[in-house]
Structures are given as structure tokens and as C-alpha cells.
């Protein structure tokens, strides 16, 4: 898959503070998560990709184009949903989205049609003629999403899209993000400090810490890799563990029948069942243990950020 976002020693300073420090990496997922604690540089990275901040060193490429020299072209292909409230209070929802679509280059008629479609799509169809100032927080978030997608961008940047939403609205927002992602016509980049939001939508995650990349990993691959990690609860059986070890598996027993096994690539699950049967061992519980995003995030936060100039590696 071609890289959507590429960063080469990307360094951004605001005032005297270095907010992004020599970021290197290539993001290519269909839905990319941008994780990190508050103040880690997530929003600054998004603003830099939009050209709001100019890097003091290094460069960023979005959709294969250098940000600095192709700003206008890129902005036409990007939809942006900012973190903070951003609307025109005395404008109706549909007029606002139409306005934004026209600014992105859509002719009047098409902009109007797409504005209506976007409002229905995000579930605000009935409220589209109400003034934005009268919307609830959840509705404002959805209106922001509508304006971000109305002009049919190739990349949608969502900065904390579930901020301030109640659980139901949050589920709805994440469902919309997944639907947009699954169309295959658009790449989504979500910035959030909520791990579950990222885990539910994203296939690649970039974790920032103090303006540096703490981790850059492909969640899909992590999930696949962890499928080989088994947790069993078995009745006591002589020789079972030895036999499993003899097959080339790594085993560890934790007492009371709890066993952890790392399966090599050439061993499949049936062989474990067969061995258990041979030793008359009952398997009472079995699950694939996988590293959750929380594990990945905690490891990234515990580890020191990459030193300057180093390549960014996986966890």
C-alpha cells in the first residue's frame, strides 16, 4: 500500500518550544491512529500536515506530495475536522457545509447536493436547517464531520472526533468513521488520546510522546502475530507439557493448571488438542492472548522516546 503520510526529520517549533522533534516514518493504513497523551504533539502534527505550521527542519509528504510546495493541491484533497468548536453560529447547518464545500472548489449546485447528502449521512438530516449555534455538542461534532467529508476528500483528518460525546454518540461517530474507512475511497487519520477509539477503527497507529515517535506499529500485524500466543487452563496431566515442549513450543506453567504456550509457525492448534488427548488432559479453557493497544501504548510510554536522528522502529 502506498504511503499516505511520510515524515523525514520533521521538526516543528512553536515559539521557543520544540513540539515535534525529528519525526521519521511512513504511514500507510486505511485508518491511521495518532495516539499520545495530552501535549504530545498530535494536533501539531495534523496542523503541520495541513500547512498551518511550517517545519523548522525536515519535511512531510501527504498523498505523495510535499506539503510545503503543494499546499493548495493537498488542501483540496483533505478534509479536516478540528478538535475545538469550529462553525459559524448564525448559519444553518446545511448552508455552512455548502459554504465549506464551495470553498473546496465544488460548484454551487454540487456543493448544495453534497451538503444535504453529508448531513443525512452523519444523521443530522432533520436538523440541517437549524442554526449551528443551537446544536448540541454531539450535533456540532457531527456537523464538523459533515463539512470534512462533503467535498469528497481523499484524506480525512479527524482531531479528537469523540471529544465530549456521550457513549451513544461516540459509538455513532466511530461507526461513521469505520464506514468511511471501509468505502476504500478515503484514508482516515484520527488523533485521540482514547485508546479504545483508535483500537476500534485503526489498522495502523503512531504513538507520540513529548513530540517524538514512541511507537509506530501496524495493529493488524500485531493482532495476527499474537494469535500464536495461547493461554490454557488444563487438568493436571503427566507429560503433557513435556510433549508440547517436544513439539518445539515454548511453555510456562503458572500452577493450578494454568499454562502459556507460544506456538511456532509450523504447529497448529489441532496438534495441541491431540497431545492433550494422548495424555488424557482436559482443556477447560483456551484463549488466544494478544497484546491490546493498551499494552502497546503502555510499553511505548514506559520506554524512552527515540534518540535524535535515530530511525523509528516498531515495538
Amino acid at each position, binding site marked *: 500500500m502506498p504511503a499516505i503520510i511520510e515524515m523525514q526529520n520533521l521538526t516543528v517549533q512553536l515559539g*521557543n518550544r520544540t513540539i515535534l522533534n525529528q519525526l521519521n516514518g511512513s504511514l500507510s493504513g486505511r485508518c491511521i491512529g495518532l495516539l499520545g497523551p495530552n501535549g504530545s504533539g498530535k494536533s501539531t502534527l495534523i496542523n503541520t500536515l495541513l500547512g*498551518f505550521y511550517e517545519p523548522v527542519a525536515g519535511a512531510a509528504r501527504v498523498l505523495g506530495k510535499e506539503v510545503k510546495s503543494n499546499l493548495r493541491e493537498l488542501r483540496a484533497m483533505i478534509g479536516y475536522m478540528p478538535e475545538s468548536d469550529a*462553525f459559524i*453560529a448564525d448559519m444553518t447547518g446545511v448552508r455552512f457545509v455548502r459554504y465549506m464545500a*464551495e470553498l473546496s472548489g465544488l460548484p454551487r449546485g454540487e456543493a448544495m447536493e453534497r451538503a444535504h447528502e453529508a448531513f443525512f*449521512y452523519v444523521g443530522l*438530516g432533520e436538523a440541517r436547517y437549524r442554526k449551528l449555534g443551537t446544536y448540541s455538542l454531539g450535533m456540532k461534532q457531527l456537523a464538523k464531520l459533515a463539512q470534512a467529508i462533503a467535498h*469528497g476528500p481523499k484524506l480525512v483528518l479527524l482531531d479528537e472526533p469523540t471529544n465530549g460525546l456521550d457513549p451513544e454518540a461516540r459509538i455513532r461517530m466511530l461507526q461513521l468513521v469505520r464506514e468511511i474507512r471501509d468505502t476504500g475511497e478515503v484514508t482516515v487519520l484520527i488523533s485521540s488520546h482514547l485508546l479504545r477509539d483508535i483500537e476500534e477503527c485503526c489498522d495502523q497507529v503512531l504513538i507520540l510522546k513529548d513530540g517524538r515517535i514512541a511507537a509506530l506499529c501496524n495493529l493488524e500485524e500485531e493482532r495476527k502475530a499474537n494469535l500464536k500466543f495461547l493461554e490454557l487452563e488444563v487438568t493436571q496431566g503427566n507429560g503433557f507439557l513435556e510433549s508440547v515442549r517436544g513439539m518445539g513450543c515454548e511453555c510456562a506453567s503458572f500452577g493450578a493448571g494454568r499454562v502459556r504456550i507460544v506456538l511456532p509457525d509450523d504447529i497448529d492448534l489441532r496438534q495441541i488438542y491431540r497431545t492433550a488427548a494422548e495424555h488424557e488432559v482436559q482443556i477447560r479453557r483456551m484463549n488466544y492472548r494478544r497484546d491490546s493497544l493498551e499494552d502497546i501504548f503502555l510499553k511505548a510510554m514506559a520506554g524512552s522516546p527515540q534518540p535524535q536522528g535515530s530511525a523509528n522502529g516498531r515495538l
Partner: protein
Amino acid sequence: MAVYKRTYKAYHGALTPAWSRFTVLTRYGLSTLFDSRPFTAYTVLCFLPFLVGLAYIYIVHSVAAQAIMGMNVGNAMPGTVNNDWFHRLLVFQAGMGFILAAWGGPGMITKDFANHSVQLYLSRPISRTEYLFGKISVLAALLSCTTWIPALILFLVKAELQGHGWLWDNLWMAGSIVLGCLLWIAVISLVSMAVAVWVKWRIAATALMLAIFFLLPALSLVIGAILRTNWGFLINFPFMITIVWAHLFKITLIHRHASGFDVVPLWAAWASLLSLCAACFWLLDRKLQAREVERA
């Protein structure tokens, strides 16, 4: 809308030319201003001097109209339609236009800042310059329609009715009308935008605009009285515009607080106005950002 249409789909249609995007801002800006009935009514009122001027020119040149109105045919009308007449008309129109600009100008920008929507504009394929140009075009269009365009129409009507080469003899006046008004529109529009971007609050921005054009002249008099200098007039921007206009329209006026128009040379008046415009540009460049940077 049909349920089957409620899915996300990309847009693959035609796009408008990139150069024309700022006109979207202008169109929506005008539309928003004219949503207000009082503003619309006042804008219509701004055309009244033009209509009065048109009627006056017609009456001056129509014996029949003078007879109907019971005037002594052949007697001269109280004022001649000349450079002084056009200057007075434009001064009046400029005053009305100033209210128009103070009323509608700052709100166009402060609304965007109040709701943080500037970042949405600038995340689109338009630059800060285009954003500003689009917003200024709203004021420029309104003020043009109430100042130099009607004045030029009156000029052409006068030329048509007068005949005998009046147009060619007074063609310089058309240039003066356009140049004088464009200078005034540029100053008013830039000040309006700059104060709006600076204070980000409509009422305060309007108050500041009024202060620049009414309090600074008072301050200039104080400076002049204390320091016994005429250079204090340099911050009296309406007076500076008056000086430039007086030279453009080749008239001599006496300022009530000064001994004559030579109190400040023409170049200094131009320099003062251009400095004000430069200061506005600097402020706009500093403050008109998608994101505000908090400096440590």
C-alpha cells in the same frame, strides 16, 4: 433522501477555477450582511444622495423641469455641477459609507474568530491572502456601489447633458473620483479588517474603528496645541484623506482647526495614509492565523 444514498461517496466532478474561490467568501459575506433588514435599509439609504444628485443635474439642464418647479428659467441654479460639487457629494457619500463599513465590516471577521472557523477556511484550498481579499471585497463592493460608481454615473450624465466638450475638459475629474474613492475604500476596509482581527470582538472592533477616525483627530489637536506643531495632524486620518482629496479635486478648503491646507504637505498626507495601510497589513499578517501560537 433515499436510504441507499446515505453512504459516503467520493466526489469526482468538476471543480471551480482556483482563482475564483475568494468570490465564494465575498458572495456569502454579502448574503450574510443583507440578511439583516436594518443593514439593507441603510444600504438603500446610501443611494439617496446619488438620486438627489441625479435629479439636481437633470433640473439644472432642463428648462421644462425648472418651469414646472416654478423657477425663473434662465437664472443660475444655486450651485454649479463642477469639481467642488462632486467633492462635496463624495465627502457626504464617504461619511455614509463609513457607517456602512463600521456596521458590516468587523462582524464579517469577528464571527469567524469567535467560533474558531478560520481554521476551517484555511484548511481549504485558499490562502490567507485570498481569505482577506474575499472579505475585503465585500466592503469594497458595497462602498464602490455607494461612492465612485454612482459618482461616475453622475459625471457621465453631466457630460452628456452639458455637451460641448465638457467631458474632455473635465476628464481628470473622473480619475480623481476613482482614485480618491479607492484610496478611501482601501483605508476604511483595511482598518475595519485589522481591528476585527486584533480584538476579535465585534462591538470592541467597531468601537476601535470609531476611535481611530474620531478620537485620533481630537488627539491630534491636543498634540498640536501642546507641542505647537502641525505634524500631529498626521494621525488625523480623515483630515489626511481630505487633504489628498482636495488636491485630487483641485479645490482649496480651510480646516476649522488649522490655518490652511498647507499645514501638512501632500506627501506627508499620502505617507500617513500609506503607513496606516502598512500597519493594518502588518497586524493582519500577525493575527490572521489558522492557529494561534502561544509563545512560551
